[in-house]
């Protein structure tokens, strides 16, 4: 009888299913995982240390780059931490804009997750279909902030600018005729809100399409049902948050339990799983797509009816408007002071968490009264999820490791920071 030995296998860091730069050292018994040791940090950029060396506002852009699939949610946590410490509240319209863009971000993230997860375990088409819808939302990002991903749009005290009245339009080219362009530009003829509303009308049909392809798909079920089961008790103890926790059957969502922004003013439901396996987490996320769509719709309706300021009127915290700065000496001084020195945040500490698409994204901010944070600690949701990878994959086969990594929705920008 042959002697059975365990093999040590290196998975990643440049493996397409590793979702970035995960290096996983697997100890295998045949094809069954006995031990999994994730090595992270290949994307470590010391964001927190960099933030300590800059005035508060300059780090907003770095928050986008933490979880680079759910950009604005990260900004939201950071901005909320500052607002909490300074003791200001953004105007209601800004809160609604933030809510809307948080949910757009959630759709963006879940589409990315669905596509990548599908691609990992064999559903190539999903990737293409998800990116088709993602493209529209990226255009919303671009229209409102100027960039497609790293928006730098939220500011302490509100958002940078109000929603634009026009959408960028496709231009005719030799690849697309006038008629085709007119069809594509039809939804873009109005304002950004019109475009988003049009999207919310189209989107449920797209989700139906995804579900047709996956939910009852027997291969999909074979790859996900009973894989990576986590009990509710373990999920809490392991620090899971977000869809991974809800997939295990724990009813916990910060948007409902500790509402922030305008979440207490919109109507939505929280999907909860039963078995805590990969399939349940998939179902939770797909249902979240539909619920986010609902929230976006309500925000559009509210924003259309209620114009108003999107930034607090506080010269010590917010730079004056350009035309004021050009005409008024005091505003010019404020402008210079704001951009050269920034603002001092009173000494103290605050922890602000938002329900990012991946779970609870928190910022722990410690200030000693200076214009730079003394300590910024990002609490990435993917970090405890990945830490539990060993527990979830032990006893599963190698191919299921890919399914579990996919279902945890790991992005290395936030785990490595």
């Amino acid at each position: 009888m042959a002697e059975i030995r365990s093999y040590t296998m290196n998975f990643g860091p440049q493996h397409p299913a590793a979702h970035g730069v995960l290096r996983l050292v697997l100890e295998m018994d045949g094809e069954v995982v006995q031990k999994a040791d994730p090595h992270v940090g290949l994307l470590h950029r010391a964001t927190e240390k960099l933030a300590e060396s800059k005035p508060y506002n300059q780090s907003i852009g770095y928050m986008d780059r933490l979880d680079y699939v759910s950009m604005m949610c990260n900004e939201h946590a950071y901005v909320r931490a500052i607002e909490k410490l300074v003791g200001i509240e953004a105007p209601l319209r800004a809160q609604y804009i933030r809510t809307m863009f948080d949910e757009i971000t959630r759709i963006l993230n879940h589409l990315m997750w669905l596509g990548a997860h599908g691609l990992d375990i064999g559903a190539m088409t999903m990737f293409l279909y998800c990116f088709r819808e993602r493209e529209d939302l990226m255009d919303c990002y671009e229209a409102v902030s100027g960039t497609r991903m790293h928006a730098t749009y939220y500011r302490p005290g509100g958002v940078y600018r109000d929603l634009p009245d026009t959408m960028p339009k496709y231009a005719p080219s030799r690849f697309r005729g006038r008629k085709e362009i007119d069809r594509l530009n039809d939804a873009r003829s109005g304002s950004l809100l019109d475009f988003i509303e049009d999207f919310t009308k189209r989107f449920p049909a797209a989700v139906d399409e995804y579900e047709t392809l996956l939910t009852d798909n027997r291969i999909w079920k074979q790859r996900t049902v009973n894989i990576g089961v986590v009990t509710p008790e373990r999920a809490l103890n392991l620090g899971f948050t977000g869809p991974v926790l809800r997939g295990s059957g724990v009813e916990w969502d910060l948007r409902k339990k500790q509402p922030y922004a305008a979440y207490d003013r919109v109507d939505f439901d929280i999907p909860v799983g039963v078995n805590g396996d990969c399939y349940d987490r998939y179902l939770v996320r797909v249902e979240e797509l539909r619920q986010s769509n609902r929230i976006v719709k309500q925000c559009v309706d509210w924003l259309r009816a209620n114009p108003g300021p999107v930034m607090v009127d506080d010269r010590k915290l917010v730079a004056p408007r350009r035309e004021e700065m050009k005409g008024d000496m005091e505003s010019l001084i404020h402008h210079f002071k704001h951009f050269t020195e920034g603002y001092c945040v009173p000494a103290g500490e605050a922890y602000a968490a938002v329900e990012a698409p991946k779970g609870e994204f928190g910022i722990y901010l410690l200030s000693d009264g200076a214009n730079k944070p003394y300590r910024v600690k990002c609490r990435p949701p993917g970090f405890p999820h990945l830490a539990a990878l060993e527990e979830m994959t032990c006893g599963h086969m190698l191919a299921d490791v890919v399914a579990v990594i996919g279902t945890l929705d790991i992005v290395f920008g936030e785990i490595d920071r």
Partner: protein
Amino acid sequence: MSVALEQHAEALSARFGDTVERVPSRCSELTFEVSSGALREVCAALRDEPEWRYEQLVDVAGVDYLDYGRDEWNTEDATSTGFSRGRSASVRPESYAHYGTESRVGPREGRRFAAVYHLLSVSGNRRLRLRAWCEPGEPPMLDSVVDVWSSANWFEREAFDLYGIVFRGHPDLRRLLTDYGFVGHPFRKDFPLIGNVEVRYDPAKGRVVYEPVSIEPRVLVPRVIREDNRYAPELKDPKRHG
């Protein structure tokens, strides 16, 4: 701060006696300082006893209080020179006489490192922050809470990696985020922002080489602390940070 939270805080203080000390907070968050010796018992009780039920450890953050309350630029009286933006190689206080160097909060009795734990009670919908000061000395030591909350595993590894805090009883205290063979603890305040070494591929040698860092450090904005009278003065209590 809401009444329920206040009652909760009082009950906590009563239950744990002098092992915990309430710290006032600006924004209605519960903060307690735990004496490092009792950390593990307090945490186990907070998780298990039915009136607290903090099922989740959300976050562990290491903090280095070395430069706390210390600014790089004096804002109380005018100086004759400007802050040379973009050209100053270093703003360590000793090289600039007119920088405000005194820590305004005062020494924290020689204590430098702390770990900040954020707990979450899902059933009670509450949050709690614990701060435990490390035992002084090198390396700073604390008890591990991995056996209370499994999520502490990687968070403590991270704090060890970035701050050098050694967690007693941690099963697998390795570096987590930094490079294999990294020297030093990069988030300590005395570790330079630009680092000490840089890495590049050397085509002549055919391998990756480490070299002393070549970036020129630039400080564009000095760190200033302004007494701002907009924020309520009764909250500006230096004891808040121990």
